[in-house]
Each structure stands twice: as structure tokens, then as C-alpha cells.
């Protein structure tokens, strides 16, 4: 704290600490914790409520009968046995009344019950969709790496400065065009009356329902997120000293060896970032499946989350689904960090 105070004085330091606190606690950690908490409970009203009210009715009847028993007992002659009997009946009545109170409290205010039920509720079909979504995201990531690595290497190391600038411009334009519009362009291509089916028709094939089969989502996803792989790889390859490549070549190393032994090891942090970004964007994309399934193909996991929140209004299960997605992303990030041997500091550059 002293280092901060020395630079900014007490007042500004306090402002800085408060702002960071608001951001970290109020916007990042707090909302995540509330979401996880929400995923861990349920309000139990449904079936139990009906059972509760019959139990309450029965208890009221029993209390009434006991009331008669008391007046019967009071009619008896004074004796220790009578006093004892009245005392036991009164105690029984009190016990029943307190049970009634408890049950009524539950009936009015449904109880929050903490459990992992929301997570286990996911049936086989939803779990399959989860696996499909994650699998597709992994596939998009792998394809993006294979396609983008040569491009990034070319811009960083092969092209002349003028050509590199031009390629950079051609990369930045599609990269900056809104995600929805990029997806929309593919909607027009893959639609039943779209360009792809027109071309297939010319070649004498039957039209394919790209959108109905869910293939459209995958194709558009590759297009939408592929460029997120280029820039991180480019940034790291650019820092590699070109003389290393030339030295290896002079000593007769074949091209694939140069990449395997020199360029890729150097570019590891960039590749890790590119993979994490591409995976995270694909797995968490709502835009692409929402537009490309058009309600005819099977939904994707993000659409299931959306439906839980905004169609069936079950925020508890929705939160559980959302947190499941978060866990998948965290697992992927750690796998990438291990695989490429990089730390969190290298990633968040």
C-alpha cells in the first residue's frame, strides 16, 4: 500500500483501491459467486405443498379430537390420575400445534434447499448437446490453427513490409466486421435457396439442407472465429529473430524442422492464447447457433442456457448450465497452459 501512497497520496490511493474493489468484487467475483449460489438451490413447493396441506388439515382434526378428550377428562372426579391425563393431552395438543406452525411456515414460504440437483437434472439429450458443443469448439480451434499458422508466419516473417501491410489490412477488415453480419453472409450461402445449393445444382447434386442438419452452425463458426487465431500467433512469431531461421536453413534444416524446432516453440504463448480465444468464443457463442439453426436444427448448449433463463424462467437450472460451460472453459484453459507450458502471465499479455 505504501508504494501506491507514495505515488498518489492518500486520497487518490483510496480512490484507486475503491475503484479496483468495485470492479473486482462488484462486477467480476460477486456476480460469478451469486450465479454459482443460484445454481446450488431450488425452491421446493411443487408436490410437497399438496402433501403438507393435507397433513395440516389432519393435524387440526386431531387437535379438535384431543380438545374433546380434555373435556371428557375434566368431567372426571378430582384425582392425581385426572391431572396427569389432562397434562399429557395438553402436551400432545401443544406438540401438534407447533408442528402445524412449522408446516404452515413452509407452506407460505417455500424453502430454499441446497443441493447439486440442478446439475444432475441435465438429461442424456442435453448432455449430448453439451458434448457436441464442446466437440465442435475443439474442432473449430484445431482447424483455425492449421489454417491460420501459415498466414501468421507469412505476415510476420516471409512477406516484404509492403505486402505484409496489405495482408494485415485484408485480415483486419473481415476481423472487424460485426460477428452477426459475418454469420449472416453464410446464412445466405447455406440457405436452401442459397449459393451453395445453386452450385450443387449446377454440378448435378441434390440440394442439401445445411441449416437443418446443424452443419451450417459449424461452417459459420469456423468463419466467424478463425481470425482470432491469427493475431496472437502473429504477435509472437514477429518477435522471433529471423537470423535463427536463416541459420537453421543454412545448416540444411528442412522447412518442417524449422517450424517444429524453432518457430512453434517460440510462438507457444501466442498459440495458447489463440486456441483459448477461439475455443472460448466458439463454445460460448450464442450468435452463430441462434442465427444458423433458425429453429429447425437441434439447439446448441448456449441456446439451452438462453431458454432456461428467458423461456422456461428456471434461473436455477440455467445457472447450473451456465456454470457447467464456465467449468469447461476453465478446464480448457488449464489444459492449454499445461500443453504449451505457459503461465497465466504469458497468456494475458
Amino acid at each position, binding site marked *: 500500500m505504501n508504494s501506491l501512497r507514495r505515488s498518489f497520496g492518500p486520497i487518490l490511493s483510496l480512490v484507486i483501491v475503491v475503484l479496483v474493489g468495485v470492479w473486482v468484487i462488484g462486477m*467480476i467475483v460477486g456476480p460469478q459467486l451469486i*450465479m454459482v449460489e443460484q445454481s446450488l438451490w431450488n425452491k421446493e413447493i411443487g408436490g410437497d405443498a399438496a402433501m403438507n396441506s393435507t397433513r395440516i388439515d389432519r393435524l387440526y382434526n386431531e387437535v379438535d379430537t384431543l380438545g374433546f378428550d380434555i373435556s371428557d377428562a375434566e368431567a372426571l372426579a378430582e384425582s392425581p390420575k385426572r391431572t396427569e391425563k389432562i397434562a399429557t393431552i395438553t402436551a400432545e395438543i401443544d406438540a401438534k400445534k407447533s408442528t402445524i406452525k412449522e408446516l404452515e411456515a413452509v407452506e407460505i414460504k417455500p424453502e430454499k434447499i441446497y443441493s447439486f440437483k440442478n446439475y444432475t437434472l441435465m438429461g442424456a439429450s442435453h448432455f449430448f448437446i453439451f458434448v457436441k458443443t464442446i466437440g465442435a469448439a475443439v474442432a473449430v480451434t484445431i482447424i483455425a490453427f492449421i489454417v491460420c499458422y501459415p498466414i501468421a508466419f507469412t505476415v510476420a516473417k516471409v512477406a516484404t*513490409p509492403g505486402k505484409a501491410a496489405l495482408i494485415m489490412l485484408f485480415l483486419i477488415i473481415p476481423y472487424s*466486421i460485426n460477428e452477426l*453480419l459475418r454469420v449472416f*453472409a453464410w446464412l445466405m450461402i447455406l440457405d436452401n435457396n442459397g449459393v451453395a445449393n445453386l452450385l450443387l445444382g449446377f454440378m448435378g447434386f441434390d440440394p442439401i439442407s445445411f441449416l437443418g442438419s446443424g452443419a451450417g452452425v459449424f461452417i459459420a463458426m469456423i468463419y466467424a472465429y478463425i481470425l482470432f487465431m491469427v493475431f496472437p500467433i502473429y504477435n509472437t512469431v514477429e518477435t522471433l529473430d529471423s537470423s535463427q531461421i536463416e541459420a537453421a536453413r543454412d545448416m540444411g534444416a528442412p522447412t518442417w524442422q524449422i517450424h517444429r524446432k524453432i518457430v512453434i516453440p517460440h510462438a507457444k504463448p501466442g498459440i495458447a492464447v489463440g486456441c483459448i480465444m477461439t475455443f472460448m468464443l466458439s463454445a460460448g457463442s450464442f450468435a452463430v447457433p441462434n442465427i444458423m439453426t433458425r429453429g429447425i436444427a437441434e439447439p446448441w448448449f448456449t441456446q439451452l442456457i438462453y431458454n432456461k433463463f428467458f423461456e422456461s424462467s428456471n434461473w436455477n437450472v440455467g445457472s447450473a448450465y451456465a456454470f457447467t460451460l464456465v467449468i469447461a472453459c476453465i478446464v480448457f484453459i488449464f489444459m492449454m497452459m499445461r500443453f504449451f507450458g505457459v503461465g497465466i502471465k504469458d*497468456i494475458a499479455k
Partner: protein
Amino acid sequence: MSHVSSSAFGRSSQIILNVYLVIFFAYMFLPLILMVVAGFNDFDTPSVTTWKGFTWKWFGVLAQDTRMWTGLINSIMIAVGVILVSMPLGLAGAFMITRFQSRFNGLLYGVMVSPLLTPGIILGISTLIFWREGGVSGGLFTAAVAQATYISSYTMLMFMARLKRQDVTLEEAALDLGASHTQVFRRITMPFLKPTILTASVIAFLQSFENYNTTIFSIGGSHTLVTEIGSRMRFGLTPAVNVIGIIFVVLTVTFATIYVIFREREKKRAAAVAG
């Protein structure tokens, strides 16, 4: 020179690489060109396969679309809100990390960049749930807060990059000469950060304006331009959507070209200074 001399690569691999680049950029640009062309087609659904003649009429249709206009206004309001939130937060985060030496620094840094590694829909959902607990339901406010959560991480990284190049001795000298902390902050630190504040504001505005995934989950019953485009793509598709595409493409090409020219000039200047 950063590039490897071309003699190091055989002619055949050069040709293969060039062919590859051409195919790649055809893949990148042809869909966008189709989208632009369909915006000029005099046909009720966006299409290039059924050509009914050239028209400007979809521009007129778009101009009269009131939901799009309110969406645009909402987008701008959210984006301005995001700038107002993410500038101070990003700046405070950057100061904290660069000037505050502590063993919690690594953890704090990890938490502050984590929104960049979190799917956008999660940021939207968690913000929505969090504010509902406080009685605030989804709307423009929650959308702006949800976006600012991760856009602040961007601005923080930009401020950190700038602060790393700062000469701290200047501040220390001013303090030694009797300037107050507020004076130093206003006269030395802020002027040094001014260019970054400008570029970070532009980035924050664009990030907010373009956002779909976070916004759709946190905006409740309201809409922005982009969420409205999203719902049009699902229901009631007209070439007016393509016209928006045309406008976006023209703006993007213009700004990207300016950016690259600017970047090249900076690079040359840096090279001239160094060499």
C-alpha cells in the same frame, strides 16, 4: 528487416504460399461481397441467386425503420456509459498493478483479466442475476455494466502498456520540488496518459457497439442496434439487414485502411529513429 530474405525460400514454396493466400482471402471476402450485392437486389428476401434488378430502395426502407433507430440510440447510450465506467476502472487497475508491489499482485491481475477469457454470455447472465438480487431488472443499465466488466480489462491492458514506458522519476522530482499529489496527477500523469485515454475510448466504444453475446443476455426487454439485427436475422429477414451490412462494411474498410496506414507510418518513424 524483420522478414526472412526471400532467397531462403524456394520459388515453388513461394508460389504455393501465394496460392494459399489467394484462396484464404477469397474465403474471407466472397461471403461479404455476396452480402453487399444482395443489398442492392430488388427482391424481398436477401438473395443473390434470384436477381430482380438493381435498386437503392432498401436504404429507404432501413431509414424508416424506427426500431433500428431506437436501437442505434440505445447502442450509443450504452457505449457512452461503458466508456465512463471502463476508463476509471481500467486506469485504477493499471495503477494498482504497475505501482502497487504486493504478493497478491499476480492473483489480482489474473482476476482482472479473467473477463477476457470468460464467454460473453456468462458475463451477461451473472450480471443479470447479481443485479436482480438488488432489485434491478435487465435493461440498458445492466447491459452497460456487463459489457464494462470485460471492456475494463481491455482498457487496463492498454493503460498498463503505456504506464510501462513512463519515466516515474519525473513524478518523483515534481513531488520533491513540493508539488502536491493531485497536482502531479493532473499535470504529469494524466497528460502522459491522454493519447491512450483517447484510443482506449475508441476501442471501448467499438467493443460495446458491436457486442451481441453479452448484451442479449443482460438487456432484458430493451434492444440495441446489434441485438435488433440479430432478431431480424431470425425472424422477418429483409434486405434492409444487408444495407446495414453495407454500411458496416464501408465504415470498417475505411477505418481499417486508415489504421493500417497510420501503423505503417509509426513503424517507419520508429525504424528511422532506431536506425
